[in-house]
């Protein structure tokens, strides 16, 4: 099992969700996060004086999938979250050791 963690632009969330549903990926978790990457935030203006917004609002999407469909899921996120501009975000993939569905006690691939 793979955990796919994607940091995306907030306004791309609907597209990412739709793209993942088409691939029959049945669940995802979303968190509102703030952070910065190579952009280092951006400047805003208030009453003539500039100030830096050091942490830009982003959405963190977390999906756990079977190993066999991990690459399809990643492709779906990349193509749907891409606006071809800076700040589009990143995807991190890691291995999940164990998963349990709480209601039935099913484990691993059956639990997803």
């Amino acid at each position, binding site marked *: 099992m793979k955990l796919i963690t994607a940091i995306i632009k907030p306004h791309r969330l609907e597209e990412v969700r739709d793209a993942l549903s088409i691939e029959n990926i049945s669940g995802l978790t979303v968190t509102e996060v703030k952070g910065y990457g190579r952009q280092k935030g951006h400047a805003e*203006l208030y009453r003539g*004086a500039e100030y830096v917004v050091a942490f830009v609002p982003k959405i963190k999407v977390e999906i756990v999938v079977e190993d066999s469909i991990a690459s399809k899921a990643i492709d779906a996120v990349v193509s749907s979250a891409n606006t071809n501009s800076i700040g589009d975000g990143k995807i991190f993939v890691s291995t999940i050791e164990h998963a349990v569905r709480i209601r039935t006690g099913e484990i691993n691939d059956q639990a997803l």
Partner: protein
Amino acid sequence: MEAQIFQLQYAIDTFYFLVCGALVMWMAAGFSMLEAGLVRTKSTTEILTKNIALFAIACVMYLLVGYDIMYDGGMLLADIALDGASSADELVSSVLAESSEAGFDGGSVYSNASDFFFQVVFVATAMSIVSGAVAERMKLWSFLLFTVVMTSVIYPMEGSWTWGGKDVFGMFALQVGDTGFSDFAGSGIVHMAGAAAALAGVLLLGARKGKYGPNGQVKPIPGANLPLATLGTFILWMGWFGFNGGSVLKLGDISNANAVAMVFLNTNAAAAGGVIGALLTARLLFGKADLTMCLNGALAGLVAITAEPSTPTPLLATLFGAAAGIIVVYSIVLLDKLRIDDPVGAISVHGVVGFFGLMIVPLTNDGASFAAQAFGALVIFAWVFIASLVTWGLIKAIVGIRISDEEEYEGADVSECGMEAYPEFTR
């Protein structure tokens, strides 16, 4: 028949005066919302408490002594209902006698009590100007203590020299040559006076923590709620029709009705000019359309036209407002460079533009001169600024005026009022 017409004229003028007073009272809501929008969430409860408490204190202190100092209205307003007459019937006949002597087009006729009501809301307006400038860092009770002095002595004194028609400290009249000081509804008497008191307070108080960096850089502290600030500005804009319109003092004949209509028209035109002036200036200076500057621009236009809303043409009123909108943006930026921290821009809007408003009166009003306007402005500013500085200084020496650094970090809401404005917000 004639007596009945005079009765009606008295009734309509009193009614008009009272409605205008109620509109000015509503400006207290405007100031509250504007200030609540331009401070941070952690100072919101405190600024709202200040606004409603200062309004109440102003009403009581002006009733106790202020109105007597300014207009000889009698301490505690003891005789206000009968206005010196021995009975209600005698009052009616004396008013009718005065009216028929002066004629239908004569001077203002209205109830004595309506005059107090109209005047008292102006005191509260002057004091409201102070609360925004000292926001987020002043002790609540020190501010309220100053409110007592400002509304019972400082404002009524300068009011007595101008609208009250008395000599300055009994020594000389506000006059240069043949022309006297002319301030129709109070660009100087109300607005610049409030700003002078605010400036004295801010100088003794210092800037909010974190507003200015060690090398002189300005670090903005954005207001928490711009929808509220915009609503507050619109409320002030509306209330200003009472402020300027009521200051005509009479509605009940054709020429005065025409004057009232011109005042409404020009007041609105100047506010519109102010917004456009500030919007364009902010766009040219900063590259962005700064909403808070637009709001200050509207108020600047209103303050500028207040000294003389009846004589300019509508086009001139718009241009005066636009000039005020331009001035206010530069003034706000300049005050920040001087490290005078005014969270809502009150000193620029009411002080700098209030002075500008006084100085443009002679452009359209033959009865005013630049020298008399400048002299009057100087006397008002010097008195209010020095008296305020002494008062703030005494309060600072005795009980202190500033909350501690830690309290400021936590917010004045918790330290002064023990409650937050938005307790369920996550930070």
